[in-house]
């Protein structure tokens, strides 16, 4: 029994003095990376998956168009709808929306406006091509089909 009585004098506590600092570091990381959502998205958003993705180069030049089935089916029906900012719009309103977005930019940068289309996978091409026609009409030709990174392959 005497064998087991050997006790070391080293302290068994983990030093916690640096704990606040570590937590603060994590906190700052998340504070910096956080983008608080500006718009409430009213449509379903399950983005398609793709491999050949490019990053957006300048965020200030980007405007978003959301397309998908409304989340509140009882209120808005099941057909895919187009959302810009916080409201649903009709296809004929897109030219006006693009022009409004262009007005926010510098004169020199107006042609470089990029439209990021966030489209739900269950949408059909009909509505997308209508939007494309309107974007051509509004001379906003740079389009980004937002998608997620495909996991397999």
């Amino acid at each position, binding site marked *: 029994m005497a064998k087991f009585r050997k006790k070391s004098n080293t302290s068994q506590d983990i030093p916690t003095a640096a704990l*606040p600092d570590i937590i603060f570091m994590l906190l700052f990381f998340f504070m910096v990376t956080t983008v608080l959502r500006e718009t409430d998205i009213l449509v379903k958003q399950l983005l398609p998956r*793709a491999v*050949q993705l*490019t990053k957006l180069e300048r965020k200030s030049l980007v405007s978003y168009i959301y397309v998908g089935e409304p989340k509140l089916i009882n209120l808005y029906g099941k057909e895919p709808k187009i959302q810009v900012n916080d409201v649903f719009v009709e296809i004929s309103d897109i030219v006006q929306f693009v022009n409004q977005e262009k007005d926010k930019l510098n004169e020199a940068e107006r042609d470089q406006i990029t439209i990021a289309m966030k489209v739900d996978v269950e949408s059909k091409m009909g509505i997308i091509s209508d939007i494309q026609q309107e974007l051509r009409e509004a001379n906003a*030709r740079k389009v*980004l089909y937002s998608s997620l990174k495909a996991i397999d392959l």
Partner: protein
Amino acid sequence: MGRKNRPTTEIPNGSMADIAFLLLIFFLVTTTIASDRGIAMLLPPKPDPNQPPPEVTKNDRNIFKILANSQDKLLVEDEPLTDVYELQELVKIFILNFGNPTEEGVTIYNSLPPSLKSFISTNGRRTDSSDDPTEAVVSFKADRGTSYELFVQVLDQINGAYNEVYGARVGISATEFLQLDKDDPIQKNKYTAARQGIPRAISIAEPNKIAR
């Protein structure tokens, strides 16, 4: 100096970690890490109403036709295709066919690395496919009833074929090509060298007006 029992002036910092934890959890919950990535495309300019639509003067063999119907079935070069993931290879073979290259095409061919040259001699040189990369156009036409998912997949495959070719010209993979940083002069040079002479000619045709 002489006085003792002065009240302590330190702020108790024992609960600092707890406060920081609370904030941390708040930001963890509200964070959506920005995921703004996708397939970039350039739409064609809007048609001029005073001018008739341009005639298609390209030879049929220089156009790689992909059709998608409302049942999400693909027709590629007049033959049905079941697996969309085969498209990338087909498009790559089409672009790098060099069936009947022009002078410009010959220059591009001579600038290609050996890996692509051997790819061409095994798969290319067909008389019924594209003349050279400067002439080749990939055309994709979707129906109004085609799903957006298929549309993105097909675009992804076509872009993948082009990026693979571009990357191979400077000895990198398609993924590395996409990650080239255009603000860095060395990488920008690489990018222009890869793109030089081979346009990314993808044509998205307007879908038919009538959906079934």
